[in-house]
């Protein structure tokens, strides 16, 4: 079964798009190096800001005919074919394919509100083409909107990026609770909270270290901790240049941390279990 990793947190600026894009590229790169026959990874951008789309394809000029919006608005029968038609190749890597977001997604939520089966409009067509990919990575918007719900319903593994700050770690349990609600409420037994990724970690800030220690010591959250990505200016420069962190500065501490994190996900893909 193809793993679908969704990066979600209702708090903005925690590094969802950065993590989703670099993870998607990292998985494709590592699978290829490991000799996997299929190293293709699909990145789905469900955020109307389209930041993940912009950095991975070099443009965010996608609209009614060639984006996730098109897929959501398609007839059920044609949705899978529409999805295939809307996928573009990333400028980062030939094996990284992107389903671009569009500012029109903002309106899509209103248009789909009240339509029966609306939350499945991504999961349904995706399930019909998913076996063509080794993994799927979904970037979500910073809210628990219909679009985020769609991403979660389509996913198998939820990963929660979080900054090591007090209020954010306090909200972590509520994020996990929300994901579990979707798992139970929408009867998605395949969806689970797979990990927590601490981002923008600054070891020189005592509060960051303290909170990370607390997280590690927590009976539930500690077991979910998958990686710690240090705060690193290479990340913002990479964005500015529309490059991955691996490509922009492979020696940066953030690059190494992301590589280790991706390694753990790839191991899960290979094992096919938790």
């Amino acid at each position, binding site marked *: 079964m193809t793993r679908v990793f969704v990066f979600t947190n209702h708090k903005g600026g925690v590094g969802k798009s950065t993590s989703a894009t670099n993870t998607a590229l990292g998985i494709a790169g*590592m699978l290829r190096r490991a*000799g996997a*026959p299929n190293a293709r990874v699909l990145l789905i951008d469900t955020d109307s800001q389209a930041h993940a789309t912009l950095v991975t394809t070099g443009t965010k000029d996608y609209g009614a005919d060639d984006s996730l919006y098109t897929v959501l608005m398609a007839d059920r029968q044609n949705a899978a074919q529409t999805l*295939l038609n809307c996928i573009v190749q990333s400028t980062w890597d030939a094996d990284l394919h992107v389903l671009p977001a569009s500012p029109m997604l903002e309106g899509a939520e209103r248009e789909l509100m009240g339509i029966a089966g609306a939350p499945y409009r991504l999961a349904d067509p995706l399930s019909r083409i998913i*076996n*063509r990919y080794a993994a799927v990575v979904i970037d979500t918007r910073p809210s628990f909107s219909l679009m985020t719900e769609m991403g979660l319903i389509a996913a198998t593994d939820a990963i929660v990026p979080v900054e090591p700050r007090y209020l954010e770690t306090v909200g972590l349990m509520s994020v996990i609770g929300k994901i579990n609600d979707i798992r139970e409420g929408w009867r998605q037994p395949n969806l689970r909270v797979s990990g927590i990724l601490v981002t923008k970690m600054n070891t020189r800030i005592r509060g960051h270290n303290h909170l990370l220690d607390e997280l590690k010591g927590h009976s539930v959250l500690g077991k979910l901790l998958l990686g710690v990505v240090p705060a690193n200016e290479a990340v913002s420069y990479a964005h500015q240049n529309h490059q991955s962190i691996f490509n*922009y500065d*492979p020696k940066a501490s953030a690059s190494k941390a992301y590589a280790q994190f991706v390694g753990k996900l790839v191991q899960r893909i290979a094992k096919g279990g938790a």
Partner: protein
Amino acid sequence: MPPKNQTHRIDDLLGSVTEELLMGNPQQFEDNSIRVERLLLEMVRPDPVQPRRVLPEQLHFAFHSNRLTPTQALKELVQLVQVAARQRGRPFNNVLELLPNPDDESDEDSSVHLSPEEQLLHDLVNLAITIRDDGQVNPLTVVDVSQGVTQQFRIETGERRYWATWLLRDFIAGYNSDGMIPCIIIPTERSSVFRQAKENTARSGLSAIAMARQAALLLLTVHGYQIPENAVPNDFYRQALDIDLRGKREYTEAILSAMGGVKKGYFSYIKNLLRLSDEAMELADRHNLDERRLRPVVALAPEYHAEVVRQIIDLNLTAKQVKELCEGDLHEREDDEQEKIPASALKIAKAAQTTTAAAPQDIARALIKQEGDTSLARARLQALRKLLTDVERYLVDE
């Protein structure tokens, strides 16, 4: 600021983590097994060079040049059959009407002779109903030919099931599936023209023309010809007429085995069918004529091929009758050739047109000069006079 675009260093970084991953089980990611998956119908396409064609030629080319979608191609086929059926006095509106009515106990339908297109649609509808009622038991065999973001699978075997599923999806009520089709995915490196040939020849009902195309594909492949990705005219296959098994002895056994274990002589006969004209080939393929009935036709001039094939179909001629028909035709042509007027006779006839152009004394001098003797010249003239008398008699007879 660090230097940009360090693509070699990204390899180092991801490579080092990958090495850690592979420690203990280096093959854990490698998987070259044959997989069975359910694929979206739209991601699957028939092989344009598949010798065994399902659609009539015109639709085959229109579909493979992307002028028709699968649904449009089927719509055209249905319309084609509707016209043919109406002309034969059995019009229908719904494709399901092509199937016999289970409540009708009369055996009226069993004696009806269907046209090839009617038979094709009838078979596809039958297959579609089986798939609807019992599911698709036998998966298609496909090869992954995806390029970039274009995900596509080329059918190696099972094109009829592909068309039946489209028919079921778009033309028959009661389709509840999700637009997916079960397929055995063959790794690209395992796909080969030999494998396809074996699959084709293992099934009954492969027409002699399809066998001829199959033989051509095998020969062209082993001789290093590039097999195109799109539909090809018969001239492509006819290139095989210039090559033979002797050119690649090491492949002879494999080719004959892929062709269903045929003998060299029969292979040669099969390949020879490529000499038929385009129209004759299409007719023979549609009506599934066997090689023995087509063999004598090849010896005729190409302009007669279609006509003779049509007669074979219309009169349901046996191989013996076809042979007699073609040999008779050949003899007639030989007789025609025998009736040709010799050049010497034409010369004399031409000379008759110019009798006023020369004076008698000049002709006498020319005769003496040619024969060297007056008595001999006289003898020539007498012979000529006798000849002219005989000619005149024939003119009267004519």
